[in-house]
């Protein structure tokens, strides 16, 4: 009986060990679930766009819903200039959403509960946004760190704070997703352990709690994917529409 709530986060190797230049590139359960969610996204979108009907079936409705949701979010937060970045935001949202949702299945592995995965995505977003900003505005992009309408005495302090807050974006973005996923799954497993230890007489209370928490976790899984995507849009907005 596995009573350790951290047992679910163990990365295990599947198949043979592959080492290239001293780096372990073996196929793990983490990679398996990344592959599964990528295939799941492809399956949903393929089935949704296979035959375009006037009266949509379930999969077409789902893909249209997701498309409209993200398109509206991008135009609301980053304006019409962000339209070319729709595929990037959409795939980011879908990948995080499917990883979170696959993690909600019993005995599965949550890819986003490892900080290395979320940190990689967040650092990629920071670099991409910085490059886009410099391409669009040249060195004028540095004006982002110097807000207008600030007294000259305060300016050095504000600039340092702005730079620090800009550089800490990937940290907060990745830790937010990772901590939410990890804390939620640990909590579910702790309550699952209570069910076993209280036995058939007292186990009903934590069991009902566990059911309610699973509902909450599905909400959080969706919400964190949404927040991840919307914060990427907000960062993109800073780079595209320099308004300081």
């Amino acid at each position, binding site marked *: 009986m596995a009573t350790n709530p951290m047992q679910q986060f163990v990365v295990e190797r599947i198949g043979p060990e592959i080492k290239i230049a001293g780096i372990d590139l073996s196929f793990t359960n983490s990679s398996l679930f990344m592959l599964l969610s990528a295939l799941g996204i492809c399956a949903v979108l393929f089935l949704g766009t296979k035959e375009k009907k006037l009266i949509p079936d379930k999969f077409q409705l789902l893909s249209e819903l997701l498309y409209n949701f993200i398109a509206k*979010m991008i135009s609301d937060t980053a304006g019409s200039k962000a339209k070319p970045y729709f595929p990037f935001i959409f795939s980011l949202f879908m990948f995080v959403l499917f990883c979170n949702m696959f993690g909600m299945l019993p005995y599965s592995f949550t890819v986003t509960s490892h900080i290395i995965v979320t940190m990689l995505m967040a650092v990629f977003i920071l670099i991409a946004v910085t490059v886009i900003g410099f391409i669009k505005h040249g060195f004028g992009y540095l004006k982002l760190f110097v807000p207008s309408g600030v007294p000259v005495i305060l300016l050095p302090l504000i600039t340092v704070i702005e730079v620090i807050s800009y550089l800490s974006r990937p940290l907060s973005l990745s830790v937010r997703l990772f901590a939410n996923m990890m804390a939620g799954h640990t909590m579910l497993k702790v309550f699952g352990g209570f069910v076993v230890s209280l036995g058939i007489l007292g186990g009903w209370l934590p069991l009902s709690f566990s059911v309610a928490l699973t509902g909450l976790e599905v909400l959080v899984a969706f919400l964190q994917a949404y927040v991840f995507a919307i914060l990427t849009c907000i960062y993109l907005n800073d780079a595209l529409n320099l308004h300081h």
Partner: protein
Amino acid sequence: MELEAAKMIGAGIAALSLAGAGIAIGNIFSSYLSAAMRNPSAAQKQFPNLLLGFALAEATGLFGLVIALIILFAF
């Protein structure tokens, strides 16, 4: 004091930051509800902002939980 005991106490204190997240989430939903009662027609438009605020506030508390886990497992 034993190091093990100090670690446990430190982790427990770090988890207290979730109290702040609780206050924040309660505040967000109470403000949303009172504003929505005053002007129900504008409530639907602010719903995404409500969810965003909820997620941001909850994450801040969870940073403390991460500190607790680092104290417990990383050292």
